[in-house]
């Protein structure tokens, strides 16, 4: 059968929803969008877009019907989208119960409100500077994550398809709970990168990713720093075994850069943690007795580093 699009336009008819979404992206705030469609009813419009008009059109002489839909862009579709998406994901997350610190915060705030004349502004001051720690932490994490998702969209990754990706929702919810338990910048960045990497990769192993998230939760920034150092440097593995000599060599090298690892016992604990999780393993076989330089980070360790590092 020869259809109009086959005969004249030579392409399949475009999907209206996609057309409108793209138009919302490329137009500035305050723009008008005119969509000419057939008589079929059309209601949906993307975030940041509002319908401000509908005009019926009669086509003469054959009396066909068309409809002109007029839209107005009032907000940035992209940012709105990321935030709404995060709100959607977060609505399923069970947040930790309020801590004693939160209760103290509420009590102190209530007490300050009771002070005549000073109470109102003082309470506002308290709320502004010493806001409920959990809420503040959550807001910051979500804001940074939204910016990261925006960057993904600019790299042509459609984050809206992630709505139905159960794996991704699981990762976000898990990471969100971990973020509330941590305040260190390095760990929060690792969590954000982990979420963004999960959004990019479709065929990754969910079990492995959840395990890595757990590592981020358990490890200190020092663990991440030592692992990164071991990954970017090679060491002399003479003799093919993990000896005290090698451990001390690494310790000396790292200590020369960062004096904070002055206590070798502290350093040994970090190394043991990394070894227990098979992220580093300097045990090598068939290694000659002479000098032999190699990395001590395992494949698992490299996967972990890639997972917590931005890769777009």
């Amino acid at each position, binding site marked *: 059968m020869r259809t109009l699009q086959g005969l004249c*336009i*030579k392409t399949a008819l475009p999907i209206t929803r996609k*057309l409108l979404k793209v138009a919302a992206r490329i137009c500035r705030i305050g*723009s008008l*969008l005119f969509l000419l469609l057939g008589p079929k009813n059309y209601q949906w419009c993307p975030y940041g877009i509002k319908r401000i008009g509908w005009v019926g059109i009669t086509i003469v002489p054959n009396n066909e019907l068309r409809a002109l839909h007029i839209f107005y862009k009032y907000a940035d579709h992209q940012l709105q989208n990321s935030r709404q998406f995060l709100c959607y994901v977060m609505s399923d997350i069970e947040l930790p119960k309020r801590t004693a610190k939160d209760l103290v915060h509420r009590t102190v705030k209530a007490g300050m409100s009771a002070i005549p004349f000073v109470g109102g502004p003082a309470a506002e001051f308290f709320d502004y500077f010493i806001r409920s720690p959990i809420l503040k932490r959550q807001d910051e994490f979500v804001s940074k994550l939204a910016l990261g998702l925006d960057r993904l969209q600019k790299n042509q990754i459609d984050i809206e398809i992630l709505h139905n990706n159960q794996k991704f929702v699981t990762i976000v919810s898990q990471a969100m709970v971990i973020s509330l338990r941590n305040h260190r910048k390095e760990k929060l960045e690792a969590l954000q990168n982990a979420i963004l990497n999960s959004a990019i990769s479709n065929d990754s192993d969910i079990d492995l990713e959840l395990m890595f998230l757990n590592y981020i939760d358990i490890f200190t920034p020092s663990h991440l720093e030592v692992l990164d150092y071991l990954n970017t440097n090679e060491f002399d593995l003479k003799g093919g075994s993990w000896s005290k000599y090698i451990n001390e060599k690494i310790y000396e090298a790292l200590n020369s850069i960062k004096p904070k690892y002055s206590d070798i016992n502290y350093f040994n604990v970090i190394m043991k943690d990394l070894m227990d999780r098979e992220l580093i393993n300097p045990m090598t076989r068939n290694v000659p007795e002479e000098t032999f330089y190699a990395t001590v980070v395992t494949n698992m360790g490299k996967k972990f580093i890639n997972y917590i590092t931005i890769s777009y």
Partner: protein
Amino acid sequence: MFNVISCKKEAKYPPYRYQMSIDLSFQRTTIIEYLVPSSAIMSTENNLRRSKYFIIPAYPAKGILYITGDNPEFISGHVRLRGKDHGRYPYNYLEMIDNIFGKEENTIEVCSHSVRGRNWSHRTKTSSCYTVDINPETRPDLVDDGQELRLVSNNIFNRSAL
């Protein structure tokens, strides 16, 4: 959504007819306001406002667009246009939009087909828009899928026609 710039009463008895000049936030255009003559609905100020119709002639098309007093943020209407073949815009369609909402140079025309864009040497009345079509035979400014537009940056156009 709109501001009344000038108003002139042209009829002495109901139905009153006003010739008004209204700034629709897009373009200064002349529209006609009708007050529906009914003593019942004119009894209160609210009803008076509700009974107002701001009518915009859809020139050069035949028909009218209208805004009501109680919902000034929505435009409705009906127009009649002579059609073109091959799925093209009807005659005077783009001219009607330019006339009512004002001419906008920075417009993108998605799935443009025969609409002439900036690449055409012989320009027409509506030739200032940036045209996109998936079919290179139509000679658009950009050959791309209108559902993706990966080569077009965000937030650069002031109007879009789809």
